[in-house]
């Protein structure tokens, strides 16, 4: 295809696509106008019905809890997929990381980065736990808090050595965290069945709106999602780091 033909094909496609887009834009509601009834209904009833002051959490973990369970297992499947694709393969041998090559040794981590990383570590872990635990009260929740917790592992890597990260990253515990989180969501769902209600129905005592222990099953689900996401992201991070930094020793089985 010559450039001239290619340009003509592109122009024709651009005119059609642009026209459709403009036509679609004219049918949109006006800027800032909300037409759907569900948001207004939920805003009116969610705090009273579920005692969760964060209506978003009430929707994602209660009213539409089954959808979120599907999303959680998408993440689970993705992490497991990465772990399988990046597993030790036949014929893979250990290579020293580029940093160790004599001619291009990277400068050591500066003290500033080291101190900052270690100083941030505690607050980041605390903040992650806070975001997970207060998901039903304020913005945040299991997913966001889980990723924040996982960045703590990244801070260890940035401020120290990869070896240190390997030591503070007990694989068994991370696997356990990830699978407990995934299974915990289903277990909370089965709790509803055990109580004679529907799957994932909010059967626990709801408490008082704004209290840390309130909103029934929502904090429990947040906790399980937080465990799963934190475990999954640390696993993902270490799989990628392993690939780039420490290639496997011959014969090492993982």
């Amino acid at each position: 295809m010559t450039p001239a033909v290619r340009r003509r094909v592109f122009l024709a496609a651009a005119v059609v696509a642009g026209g459709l887009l403009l036509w679609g834009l004219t049918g949109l509601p006006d800027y800032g106008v909300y037409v759907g009834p569900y948001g207004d209904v939920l805003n009116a009833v969610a705090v009273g019905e579920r005692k969760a002051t964060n209506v978003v959490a009430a929707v994602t973990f209660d009213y539409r809890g089954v959808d979120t369970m599907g999303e959680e297992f998408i993440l689970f499947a993705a992490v497991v997929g990465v772990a399988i694709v990046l597993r030790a393969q036949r014929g893979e041998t250990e290579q020293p990381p580029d940093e160790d090559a004599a001619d291009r040794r990277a400068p050591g981590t500066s003290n500033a980065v080291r101190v900052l990383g270690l100083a941030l570590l505690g607050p980041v872990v605390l903040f992650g736990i806070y975001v997970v635990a207060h998901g039903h009260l304020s913005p945040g929740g299991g997913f966001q808090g889980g990723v924040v917790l996982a960045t703590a592992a990244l801070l260890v890597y940035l401020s120290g050595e990869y070896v240190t990260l390997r030591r503070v990253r007990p694989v068994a515990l991370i696997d356990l965290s990830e699978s407990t989180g995934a299974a915990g969501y289903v277990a909370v769902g089965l709790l509803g069945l055990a109580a004679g209600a529907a799957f994932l129905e909010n059967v626990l005592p709801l408490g008082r709106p704004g209290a840390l222990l309130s909103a029934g099953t929502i904090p429990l689900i947040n906790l399980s999602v937080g465990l799963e996401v934190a475990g999954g992201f640390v696993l993902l991070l270490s799989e990628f780091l392993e690939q780039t930094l420490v290639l496997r020793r011959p014969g090492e089985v993982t």
Partner: protein
Amino acid sequence: MIVLEAAVFLLVAAGGTAVALTRDPLNQAIVASFYGLILGIMFLVFQAPDVALSQITVGAVALPLMIVLALAKVRALAGGRKDDAG
């Protein structure tokens, strides 16, 4: 409020263009990280703090990190190939 919304829209447009115009993948990862932060600010301005938190953690931290690590792996492989002579 409308001024703030217009400003954040312009920032998002500028950030997206910057990501598309950056050609080197390593630089692009850094620009994309910054763009993720801008998107997070946009969600915050439009009063969606939940989404803003997810956007900042994933778009500004996790995604660029994966790209940088993948690039490091690709470069290590390309360097190894040259030495193997095959």
